[in-house]
């Protein structure tokens, strides 16, 4: 599918998307000579870790490297390049920091195991890890883990178990301090099927597993927080023998609160130092904007943290004029339809100016290319900088750039939610808390603040009528959920409590004790139960991701130029209508309907029914979709979306609707605004 520009040329979507690197993109143009040294530095560390692990395992340590660059210099691209280049010879994990609370070993463990499920070059990273380890332990070459794993898969269960036992013994013979039960399940996971594998991965990730999952894998309890470091040590150690784990902490500038260091930065520094001291065989890569690192992050590290984190610093290089031209050519060659031969879409003079401009990042080059394709006139950069087109303080009309960014965030959030649901798990409560904190920026008279780390309530809501604790209940096991509910019941005596849980992970009717505890919480009269709908989850995750990207300079305006956080906040405020989101209205007590739990209890009392299926949404009802004007109604729910999505959603509601009818309806409606040809949104105030 492509997008038509002003001249009618078809610009491929991948081309437009490439302005923002996707760490997990399979097909990405790459110029190997650009930042070859930074790639080699990381690659060398991976090789060194693997060699030391094999030759002198007892002396194995972790290693740390800092990679810096301005926005668009290619930090995330570097991750994608290494992942594609090294593929199964290393396991790559990309983590954005948490905002609401310091990152914990358990959070990192969850991210590592989640991304073990991602594939590189068609091979799941978990299989690469286990296959290369088993191959090495068997004295075979670890270069083709998939082949080795296939051999294991062909063995009978008993034979395979015996071989895995042998492998476990071998590893424990090298490092006695590893967690045996963790290691056994890690090695068994690639051979498990369906629900059992999901349960194993859930347990390995430190997530709160439900009873059925624990029973399925023969575990008595989920991994507790204090075992997370041991689990990570086991993971990193065994991976180092075959495919070392490369943990990339990206967008670290988001840890800076205001312009000063704070608890989050301290938490990150302590965690990184702990990893360096406690884990072996980990390749830790820290990525941040150069100025933010130099002025905000590094000065706040104490000497002990600095010596562990800043083992080596690499500032990414910008393309030389020759590399800039090669990069542009690479992109232009990938465009499906070209009107003329190279240097189209540039003229010779324009191309020469663009590639020779000092300070051009790869992203800026792509923006220049996009402008040229769109037929925008050449602008002399120097003049532009001295006399900006958009005067300071004046806000450019938000358009494709912001919407692209929002759509990307929505897409990623939907994928994350689907993955969590596939694992029968809630979305990480920390990420949802970050999303709610982000919402707080757009609410008048209300503040949402982080709670105390480790407490049952992650957030505190401060409104005109007082403070309320907000607890996001992402537990999978009824006992741990019940335990948190009991704590909340105690807290409710001192301060009103709002408990949030994803509707998709409703309480099972068999969790009688937990349901009783929830009832006890609600009976205090100081508690409210809010079901979080899937759409809300997606919005919260997307908003958090959008604001983090904005802070990292990764959001661009309608002209493709990086914009600062203030402009993104203004756009969000004007277009997304955060205060009207159902979850926000519920939190602020503006919901039109009773909380579902109360309704359920009433029904329970009336019918003496055990449990009934939820029939009424707890969050305020969305706009009803009338038979006529279905497209506008759908759009009012989505607020902003691609035209294709509106067509799709409208067809679900009204199967007879056609694309033409939807387009005609949207074009006729004064409430609807088109951003280009593909994006539509509801006008502010409508």
């Amino acid at each position, binding site marked *: 599918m492509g997008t038509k520009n002003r001249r009618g040329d078809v610009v491929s979507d991948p081309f437009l998307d490439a302005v923002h690197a996707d760490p997990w993109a399979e097909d990405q143009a790459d110029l190997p000579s650009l930042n070859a040294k930074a790639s080699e530095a990381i690659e060398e560390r991976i090789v060194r870790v693997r060699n030391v692990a094999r030759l002198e395992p007892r002396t194995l340590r972790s290693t740390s490297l800092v990679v810096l660059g*301005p926005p668009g210099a290619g930090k995330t691209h570097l991750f994608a390049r290494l992942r594609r280049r090294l593929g199964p010879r290393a396991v790559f994990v990309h983590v954005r920091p948490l905002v609401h609370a310091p990152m914990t070993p358990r959070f990192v463990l969850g991210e590592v195991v989640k991304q073990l499920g991602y594939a590189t070059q068609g091979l799941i990273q978990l299989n690469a890890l286990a296959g290369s380890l088993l191959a090495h332990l068997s004295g075979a070459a670890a270069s083709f883990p998939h082949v080795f794993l296939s051999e294991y898969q062909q063995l009978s269960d008993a034979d395979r178990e015996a071989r895995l036992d042998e492998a476990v013994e071998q590893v424990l013979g090298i490092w006695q301090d590893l967690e045996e039960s963790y290691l056994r399940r890690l090695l068994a996971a690639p051979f498990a099927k369906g629900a059992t594998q999901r349960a194993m991965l859930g347990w390995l990730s430190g997530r709160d597993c439900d009873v059925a999952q624990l029973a399925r894998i023969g575990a008595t309890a989920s991994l507790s927080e204090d075992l997370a470091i041991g689990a990570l040590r086991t993971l990193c150690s065994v991976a180092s023998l075959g495919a070392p784990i490369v943990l990339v902490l990206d967008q670290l500038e988001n840890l800076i609160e205001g*312009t000063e260091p704070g608890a989050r930065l301290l938490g990150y520094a302590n965690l990184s130092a702990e990893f360096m001291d406690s884990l072996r065989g980990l390749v830790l890569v820290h990525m941040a904007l150069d100025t933010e*690192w130099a002025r905000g992050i590094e000065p706040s590290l104490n000497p002990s943290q600095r010596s562990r984190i800043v083992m080596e610093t690499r500032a990414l290089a910008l393309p030389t004029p020759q590399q800039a031209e090669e990069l542009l050519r690479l992109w232009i060659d990938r465009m499906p339809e070209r009107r003329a031969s190279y240097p189209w879409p540039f003229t010779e003079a324009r191309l020469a100016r663009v590639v020779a401009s*000092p*300070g051009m990042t790869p992203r800026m080059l792509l923006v*220049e290319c996009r402008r040229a394709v769109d037929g925008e006139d050449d602008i002399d*950069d*120097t003049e*532009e*900088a001295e006399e900006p087109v958009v005067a300071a303080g004046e806000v450019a009309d938000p358009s494709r750039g912001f919407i692209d960014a929002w759509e990307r965030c929505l897409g990623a959030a939907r994928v994350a939610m689907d993955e969590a649901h596939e694992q029968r798990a809630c979305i990480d409560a920390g990420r949802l808390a970050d999303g709610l904190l982000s919402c707080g920026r757009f609410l008048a008279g209300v503040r949402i603040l982080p709670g105390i780390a480790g407490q049952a309530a992650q957030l505190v809501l401060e409104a005109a009528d007082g403070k309320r604790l907000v607890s996001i209940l992402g537990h999978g096991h009824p006992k741990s959920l019940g335990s948190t509910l009991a704590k909340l019941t105690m807290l409710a005596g001192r301060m009103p409590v709002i408990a949030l849980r994803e509707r998709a992970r409703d309480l099972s009717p068999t969790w009688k004790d937990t349901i009783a505890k929830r009832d006890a919480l609600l009976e205090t009269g100081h508690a409210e139960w809010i079901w979080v709908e899937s759409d809300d989850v997606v919005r919260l995750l997307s908003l958090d991701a959008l604001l983090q990207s904005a802070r990292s300079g990764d959001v661009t305006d309608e002209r493709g130029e990086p914009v600062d956080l203030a402009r993104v906040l203004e756009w969000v405020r004007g277009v997304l209508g955060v205060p009207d989101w159902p979850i926000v209205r519920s939190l602020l007590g503006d919901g039109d309907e009773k909380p579902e739990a109360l309704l359920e209890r009433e029904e329970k009392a009336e019918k003496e029914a055990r449990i009934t299926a939820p029939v009424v949404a707890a969050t305020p009802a969305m706009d009803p979709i009338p038979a006529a004007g279905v497209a506008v109604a759908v759009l009012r729910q989505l607020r902003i979306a691609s035209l294709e999505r509106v067509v799709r959603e409208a067809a679900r509601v009204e199967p007879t609707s056609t694309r033409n009818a939807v387009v005609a309806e949207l074009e006729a409606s004064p409430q609807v605004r088109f951003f280009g040809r593909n994006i539509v949104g509801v006008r502010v105030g409508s």
Partner: protein
Amino acid sequence: MAKARKTAPAFDLDRLVAQAREHIESEAFVKVSALGPAPARSHVTETLRSLGFEVTKSTVRRPLREQLLEAVSQGAFVPVKSFASFVRGGTAKEAKGVAMELAQEGRLARVIRGSAEILVPVSAPTYTRDELLVRSRALDTLVKTLTKASKLKGVSVLRSDVVESIEEALPEFTRSARSSSATSEVAHDGKEGTILKVFAALDAMRDESLGLSFIPRVVAHLGRDMGVDAARKSLLDAASRGLVELRPEGGLRRLNGEELELCLPGPQGTRLSWARRIEGGTS
């Protein structure tokens, strides 16, 4: 029946040596265990040794001296603590030993930058020991005077005295300032000299851990010598000649008005705030 005598397998020794050389050319070293079948290794290592490569128990490598000299000659300023990362096929201890030998032989110079000790090419402008002592004494006297004055309420020192003391302590500093203040514009025929000044300013203002120089500081430093406008032009000129990389500001409103003023205009409305010398880029 008598056992057939085992014949030693024939090896293509020339090919093995050629392969090893090729590997060393690209990677700077090769492991002895990778030199081919065990019986052939001693011959291959001896041949490589005769070709000038260094042979240790486990590796054959390009001589560490050569590697280190090459790294420094390419403009790298090598911190003493990280010698090992600039050479391949040797231990940190070996690298340090070689570096110290080179310094004693006068082929490299050891300098202190901030709190780190660094190796630089002997061609880098440094002071002799006597020059250091003279400057240290002169500045020490000045510091004592300033400290004394600052401790006494209502007492100060004459600005002209301070300037005079600095001129005495650092005559080269004021000499260069005087000689260049006459021409604030970069004259075409003086470009080479200007580029050298830009390099010197970039080196002087370089953040050791980042490896980058903050442009407002570089411009201010150069501006004392040639004026701010000329300093900005000279940086742009060095960038256009591929000698210096100028980088856009990526911070979150970290620059104050004065710093923004000294930064250079960048593409797409950005400001260029960091710079570094491009490796191999010499005037």
